[in-house]
């Protein structure tokens, strides 16, 4: 007997926020035991819809049906009771609690009035074995690697008998191998009758794992399809609404002199541990060196050391042939360094300042933007108008505070600012993180242009697609060391994935590879 009841259905969901129609009469179905991917750019309305299903938001209009029955979901409590579990993009785990404590929070086993942590630990072990998700019940969550934290989140949902599992951008923080493991877990869950909604903006993954794909754009459902009927190009077009170039058109690099030389660099992190452990490499003018690696292997500290934001414990960083006397960011900027920081909101912009001021953050003290002690407002405005037009920054005015812009537009402001100076070395750290396909396309194009104009580019990214698309040479960073440096066209995606996860270079690449 085939069970045609839909595990979940939403009809005509409308959700308004001030100034934005986040969900515009959205209808969506989830069949039992299927993996249904929900694809869309940032701001398309996918997370809003999921938050409504999970009871964190209340819809203005529309209905929700679970197993054919109409339901009202007023809070996560209701959602959990109805068998809906959600793994959020930013984990909802209490960092100082153990795995067992996090697992049972809100549904605690008790002996009389006392919390029964023993039963909690046993539940972790039992579920671990049942679903093949290895975790140590006594480990403190903040000490666990991200991939393991994610398993804890999934176990939390399973502990509460979730039959509908929503995964919100689960692969953002995983290596390619961990992504494969996650897919395997999803297949097993399917077999046990769990229906999965998989939210992402990564096209390759959708085609690899989904049974059906629904694309959303600007709050509406654009269409529902199956992997056999589309390819990446078609999906991207559906997501953005126009043709999108996925692979950057790149002529071969013409490397010149060495612009940046890093030798035996040692850098400590916040806790005094060695984050960068003897790293050496060179970047030449006119080439892009991509540093690949899962976040947390020292990339942040490496970039901070190079850009003068963190002290160097040992080794040298030589910019353009001179070792900087004191590694002061202003000195580096004045000598041709441009920096697109990893955290655009904390380190790239002053969110409360208008866009016009953000665009001159590095040069405000020099003519034409200043005359002695006085600001030259006219020059600042004119500069802002020109850059906003050139880089197509979507904003009501040049005086809008940076905080009001979308992520993609914020990043464009940073790029506009950095590229409006003569650049000898561009250090780009996760330059397209969290951005939609359209913005990614734009920024990749500008980075390649910068390279072709003779700048040296150091690109640090956890997105393998980005590295493979842009880099001329690729260095893989693992646990603070560069484990291999290869030419981009001589290495495959899976080889990079293995190196990023720590497999020894000789095994992956054979004896010809030269670990730097």
């Amino acid at each position: 007997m085939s069970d045609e009841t839909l595990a979940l259905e939403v009809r005509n969901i409308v959700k308004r926020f001030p100034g934005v129609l986040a969900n515009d009469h959205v209808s969506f179905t989830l069949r039992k035991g299927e993996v249904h991917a929900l694809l869309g750019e940032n701001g398309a309305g996918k997370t809003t819809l999921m938050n409504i299903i999970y009871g964190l938001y209340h819809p203005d209009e529309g209905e929700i049906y679970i197993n054919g029955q109409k339901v009202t979901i007023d809070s996560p409590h209701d959602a959990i009771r109805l068998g809906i579990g959600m793994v959020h993009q930013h984990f909802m785990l209490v960092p100082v609690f153990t795995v067992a404590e996090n697992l049972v929070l809100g549904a605690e086993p008790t002996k009389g009035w006392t919390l029964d942590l023993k039963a909690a630990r046993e539940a972790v072990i039992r579920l671990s074995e049942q679903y093949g998700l290895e975790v140590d019940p006594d480990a403190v969550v903040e000490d666990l690697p991200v991939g393991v934290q994610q398993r804890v989140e999934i176990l939390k949902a399973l502990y509460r008998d979730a039959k509908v599992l929503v995964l919100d951008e689960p692969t953002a923080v995983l290596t390619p191998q961990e992504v494969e493991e996650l897919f395997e877990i999803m297949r097993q869950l399917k077999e046990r009758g769990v229906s999965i909604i998989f939210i992402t903006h990564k096209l390759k993954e959708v085609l690899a794992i989904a049974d059906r794909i629904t694309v959303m754009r600007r709050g509406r459902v654009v269409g529902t399809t199956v992997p056999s009927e589309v390819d990446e190009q078609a999906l991207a077009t559906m997501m953005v609404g126009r043709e999108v170039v996925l692979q950057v058109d790149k002529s071969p690099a013409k490397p010149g002199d060495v612009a940046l030389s890093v030798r035996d660099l040692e850098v400590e992190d916040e806790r005094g541990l060695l984050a960068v452990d003897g790293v050496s490499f060179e970047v030449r003018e006119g080439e892009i060196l991509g540093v690949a690696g899962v976040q947390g292997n020292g990339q942040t500290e490496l970039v901070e050391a190079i850009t003068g934001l963190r002290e160097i414990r040992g080794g040298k960083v030589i910019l353009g042939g001179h070792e900087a006397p004191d590694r002061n960011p202003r000195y580096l900027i004045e000598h041709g360094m441009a920096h697109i920081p990893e955290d655009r909101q904390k380190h790239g912009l002053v969110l409360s300042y208008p866009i016009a001021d953000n665009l001159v953050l590095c040069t405000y003290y020099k003519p034409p933007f200043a005359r002695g002690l006085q600001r030259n407002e006219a020059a600042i405005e004119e500069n802002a108008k020109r850059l906003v037009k050139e880089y197509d920054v979507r904003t009501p005015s040049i005086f809008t505070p940076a905080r009001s812009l979308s992520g993609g537009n914020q990043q464009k402001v940073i790029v506009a600012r950095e590229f409006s100076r003569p650049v000898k070395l561009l250090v780009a750290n996760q330059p397209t993180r969290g951005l939609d396909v359209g913005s990614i396309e734009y920024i990749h194009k500008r980075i390649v242009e910068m390279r072709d104009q003779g700048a040296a580019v150091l690109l640090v990214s956890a997105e393998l697609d980005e590295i493979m698309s842009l880099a001329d040479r690729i260095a893989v960073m693992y646990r603070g060391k560069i484990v291999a440096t290869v030419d981009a066209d001589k290495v495959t995606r899976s080889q990079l994935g293995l190196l990023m996860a720590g497999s020894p270079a000789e095994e992956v690449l054979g004896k010809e590879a030269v670990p730097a």
Partner: protein
Amino acid sequence: MSTPASFANWKLFWKRWGIGLSIAAIVLAAILYFYFRSPRVTEAVLASTLRQSVPLVLGALCGLLGERAAVINIGIEGQMLMAAYVGFMVNVRTGNLLFAVLMGVLTGAVLGALLAFMSVTLKIDQIIGGTVINILAIGLTGYFYQVGLSAQGKLNPIPLGPLAKIPLIGPVLFDNPPITYASIILVFVVHYVLFHTPWGLRTRAVGEHPRAADTLGINVYLVRYVNVIVGGALAGLAGAYLSLEAVGSFERSMTNGRGFVALAVMIFGKWTPFGAWGAALLFGFATAMQTQLQFAGKLHIPHQFIGMLPYLLTIVVLAGFVGRARPPAADGIPYEKEG
């Protein structure tokens, strides 16, 4: 936090509690030394230490219940003062000590509800909310206080049978008035609730990562309200202690800064009940010593400077230890549900 014992955890344990335990060991040695030199004085000092520590430990428990749920309570002073006054007045009018204590506790709880309303529902800056309560208390008690009223008795020590006869420990620990006993029992109770019950787990989750708790169906607002109100009740008990057990009358501003010292005690105790108890005893000891030194007259330091001792200790602790002690992650941040 309970983690299994192993060498790595032993090192972690020492790092967290090493300073406190070392101080405790030194103090214990000193006590035994002085006891053998002059038993009477030592007993007096130790008894005084315990007495001085009662409002501090109750105030610290109040503070930590709130802060474990991420609500900062600067108004402990005001809660104590108001409760001391109400308890005293009820006693004057009714002569019923038990009823007076209960009214003091209720006063603290009502002010706690006010703080909760300001912090959780109105989402006002919590420091300002606490200050409002302090100013309110000083104003109301100062205005309504009538000089010359006298209480009808005060709470007397209750010796616990043969235990009270043990040398040194007996008179100090087992011959105390009821609220003093209650304060010790409450240390154990709060510890149990906070670390061994589901309610305590949820409270701590709300204090560290309220959104995570919310997504699991826990009512963040309710948890915060309850914790702050119960904390207020404890502060109320501290106030009742001052006017009905320690002194037996009321004076304007009789709390004298103890509510703020209680905050230092809470931080020094790393937001745990037993830590707070140890810290309260330390501060109580400083105050007891200060009295002894003044009466001994051997040191030629003006008595005002000696009187500064407990407050100096407060400053040193707050300045030196706050950086290293880690409060609950969401402390002081009002919780907003989205959408």
